[in-house]
């Protein structure tokens, strides 16, 4: 058994791209080995910003032998009337480099063919792998590629080294003008450019000796451990951001956490500004005291040990300059009359073809008005009108031009500085929240409503301009907008059917009725699929529960969410199965019959009369429960009637000879089906055996 070691040395790959490339590499190797029927043990892949490593164990020296049949032409075509080879057979032999005498008859279901039976396999694994490495490397895909040498081979960054060892022997590989060699790239700062590698053991030892921690989780654990130490030392808590942590893991081969401090005068800047400048501009993490208050310290990660505190001191200087910049933007922006900026939004493009932000802000007024009415938040009307009017003014500030991610937040802060009421500035502050489906619960209703208006306007505009929203890419963030709208509605328990809002938003863009109709349908379909996804993936409802509560005719999102929650609760108390079997039975019997009302005059038997009485008595109560969205209670009450319905089924023959009686009984049962459907289509729930889980 042999092993194969591959390492591609690349100049610094952008940190966010590294793990994706590593996964592609694993998939490509695995697929090629499978295709060539090469058996193997583990495929270990690891990557940093400077190297991509693949190590495959338990490879055979040669591929396994197997009998292989190659079909040629049919016997009738292959041989002429005298039994001599035709052109067809000659070509076949030429193509396969065989003589006529090698050809045999092969019986198949379709008749007799001439062809070859030969022993395949037994090929040198090393040679097969050597040959497919360039193919794999060309098959890698990147967000953005470049060329750098005469090979004109596009790649993410220049390749500097190729190491390919099979059973400790170098495979001669060439890609992008680079020839393989018995070496791996060293650490950028702490070792020579390359170190020699003649075996996997060499490689592992060489990594250690050259300060390269190849495994991602080892790097992560090292960073986390050191951050914990710093927290103890500072008696505080480091604000760890997952994105930043990933950045550290994939931009350092020997990560070392360090800390530093800054002049506490900068703490007078708003916290949002301090943390944004720290994390986004300088890739440093903020530190909080035990009470959660920001302190004048930061934590970062270097690629080398910082024994002389050089790295820490250097970063302290840099962060000071950065805060000076922040202070400059903050001071300059506050000199502006924030309220008077709106007309200047005519100079800020919202999106090509969708006009300027001034036009957008003007569209928001009617959407906000509509939302306030629909969700019965009349008292918020004036607040939200003001907020909508000024919500994009911050696009004209230096701060947001420098840090677009602060949009909204800065608008809120500048309004606050200008003495605006809290409800108004909070609405502007939070109207870009949430950034999709996030765990945190939202806390400002005004911001939520403004956000729905703003995002629905985005969606309507982009869909009207023909932006496809079905594809996996989401360049305009429409999917995130839709997810955010769903999250806001659920968080604030908004009673809102999106249909009319969609129509209103689309009306701002569509030129004619046909466009209007088309765009509304597209957006409704899109929201239905987003809703389905978010219920399943984000709120983790069972898929059959989601199917049971989704109703194509409505986008009353909070309603649907509550129904899913009720069904889940019923299911957990074991009450959903009886309802599900009941509705299945009701649906089966009513299948193929038009829905009609039952008439009491046609009821003959005791059991059907009882059932009818029960129905009449309970329907108003259950309807009321449904109107009040008490789906749990409504379902329970229906469930209470089950024995009476069962008894009806036991005693009454629905399919009476008399057509009118039969029709009436079906109608009676249909009424119950309809009652249940007011909550959900329970018949779509999957029957679970005891102890079984979905």
């Amino acid at each position, binding site marked *: 058994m042999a092993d194969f070691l591959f390492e591609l040395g690349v*100049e*610094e790959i*952008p*940190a966010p791209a590294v793990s994706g490339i590593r996964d592609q590499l694993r998939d490509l190797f695995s697929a090629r080995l499978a295709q060539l029927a090469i058996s193997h043990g583990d495929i270990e892949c690891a990557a940093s910003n400077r190297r991509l490593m693949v190590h495959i164990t338990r490879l055979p020296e040669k591929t396994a032998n197997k009998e292989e049949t190659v079909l040629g032409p049919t016997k009738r075509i292959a041989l002429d009337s005298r039994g001599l080879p035709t052109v067809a057979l000659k070509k076949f032999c030429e193509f396969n480099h065989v003589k006529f005498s090698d050809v045999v008859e092969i019986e198949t279901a379709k008749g007799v063919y001439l062809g070859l039976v030969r022993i395949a396999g037994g090929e040198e694994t090393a040679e097969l792998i050597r040959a497919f490495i360039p193919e794999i490397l060309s098959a890698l895909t990147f967000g*953005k590629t*470049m*060329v*750098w*040498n*005469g090979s*004109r081979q596009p790649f993410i*960054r*220049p390749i*500097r080294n190729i190491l390919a060892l099979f059973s400790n022997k170098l495979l001669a590989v060439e890609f992008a003008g680079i020839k393989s060699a018995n070496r791996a790239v060293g650490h*950028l*700062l*702490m070792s020579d*450019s390359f170190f020699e590698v003649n075996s996997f053991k060499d490689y592992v030892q060489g990594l250690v000796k050259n300060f390269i921690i190849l495994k991602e989780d080892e790097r992560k654990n090292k960073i986390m451990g050191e951050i914990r130490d710093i927290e103890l030392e500072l008696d505080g808590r480091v604000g760890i951001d997952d994105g930043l942590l990933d950045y550290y893991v994939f*931009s*350092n081969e020997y990560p070392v956490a360090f800390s530093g401090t800054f002049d506490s005068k900068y703490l007078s800047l708003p916290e949002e500004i301090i943390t944004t400048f720290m994390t986004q501009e*300088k*890739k*440093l993490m903020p530190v909080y005291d035990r009470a959660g208050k920001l302190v004048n310290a930061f934590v*970062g990660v*270097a*690629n*080398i040990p*910082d*024994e*002389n505190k*050089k*790295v820490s*001191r*250097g*970063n302290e*200087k*840099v*962060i*000071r*300059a950065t805060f*000076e*910049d922040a202070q*400059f933007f903050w001071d300059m922006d506050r000199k502006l009359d924030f309220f008077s900026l709106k007309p200047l939004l*005519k*100079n*800020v*493009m919202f999106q090509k073809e969708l006009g*300027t932000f001034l036009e957008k802000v003007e569209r928001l007024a009617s959407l906000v008005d509509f939302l306030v009415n629909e969700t019965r938040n009349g008292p918020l009307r004036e607040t939200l009108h003001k907020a909508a009017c000024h919500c994009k003014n911050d696009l004209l500030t230096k701060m947001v031009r420098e840090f677009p991610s602060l949009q909204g937040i800065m608008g809120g802060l500048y309004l606050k500085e200008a003495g605006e009421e809290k409800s108004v500035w909070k609405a502007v502050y939070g109207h870009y929240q949430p950034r999709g489906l996030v765990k945190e619960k939202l806390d400002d209703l005004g911001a939520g409503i403004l956000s729905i208006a703003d995002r629905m306007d985005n969606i309507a505009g982009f869909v009207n301009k023909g932006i496809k929203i079905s594809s996996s890419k989401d360049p305009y963030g429409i999917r995130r907008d839709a997810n955010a709208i769903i999250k806001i509605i659920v968080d604030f328990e908004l009673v809102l059917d999106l249909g009319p809002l969609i129509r209103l938003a689309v009306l701002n863009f569509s030129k004619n009725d046909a466009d209007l109709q088309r765009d509304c349908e597209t957006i409704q379909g899109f929201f239905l699929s987003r809703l389905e996804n978010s219920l399943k993936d984000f709120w983790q409802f069972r898929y059959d529960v989601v199917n049971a509560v989704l109703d194509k005719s409505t986008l009353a999102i909070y309603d649907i969410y509550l129904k899913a929650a009720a069904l889940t609760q019923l299911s957990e108390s074991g009450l959903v199965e009886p309802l599900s079997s009941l509705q299945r039975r009701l649906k089966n019997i009513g299948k193929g019959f038009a829905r009609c009302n039952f008439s009491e005059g046609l009821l003959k038997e005791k059991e059907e009369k009882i059932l009818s009485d029960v129905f009449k008595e309970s329907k108003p109560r259950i309807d009321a429960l449904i109107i009040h969205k008490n789906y749990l209670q409504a379902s329970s009450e229906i469930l209470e009637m089950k024995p009476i319905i069962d008894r009806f089924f036991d005693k009454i023959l629905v399919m009476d000879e008399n057509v009118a009686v039969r029709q009436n009984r079906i109608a009676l049962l249909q009424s119950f089906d309809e009652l249940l459907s007011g909550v959900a289509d329970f018949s779509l729930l999957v029957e679970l055996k005891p102890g079984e889980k979905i």
Partner: protein
Amino acid sequence: MSIQNVILKLQEFWAERGCYIASGYDNEVGAGTMSPDTFFRVLGKKPWRAAYWQPARRPDDGRYGQNPNRVQKHNQFQVILKPVPSEGQMLFLDSLIYLGVDISIHDIKFDEDNWASPSLGAWGVGWQVMCDGLEITQFTYFQQAGGLELNPNTLEITYGVERLAMFLDGQNNVYDLDWGNGVSYGALKLEEERQFSIYNFETADIDMLRGVFQHYQREAERLLEHQLYMPAYDYLLKCSHAFNMLDARKAVSVAERTALMGIMRNLSARIAQKYVMQTEGEKNG
């Protein structure tokens, strides 16, 4: 280390590695890239190695002399290596060592930063080089200039001279730097920064700037008709600076920005084509 020593050392280092030491361009430019020693020479097939010190103007970066490391006119040291050497990163690290940086105790990172200049129809892929969190250099593999694909590619290394000097000198404030032989950066530049910040942000005559942009544009176009692509390029640079001034004055509307950028991109493409046609002959035209 003083500013002048940083420049002298870099000149020495790159001269020894085959670069011709050019003078900085005598026209307002936003970056060393805009000097003809880069813009024209990255086009076409001919190998080229040049290094030069280039003052660069970015009106919007003015801070009235109040910020410790941001100024509206800073100094770049530009290195152009065509074709791309395979050991480019190592050459760069060697230059830092030559300047006296102990790379084993400083955190030097190549941090993704792709560069694009829409008005020059140019873009490249590369990094900003960070040293203990301070951006000291832009390191770029040129992919396109004047709208033309580059083959061979060029490696461009742009050092920020003030940043490097601050780092080497352990200074916190750019104005405390020694330019050379006891002349301080502050004595040389503080008043200049203050006056130009006021001019760039508050006083520049917007109508005049719009007017000269048009004059420069027409002159560039006229010169192109006479096949004088080099003077035409000078006027493109003047357009670019007028545009940057208008931008610092917040006087450029959306529609105008698109239009002005389009004008400059178009001019740079025509200039690049004329250059390639003349220097490489008909086959590349």
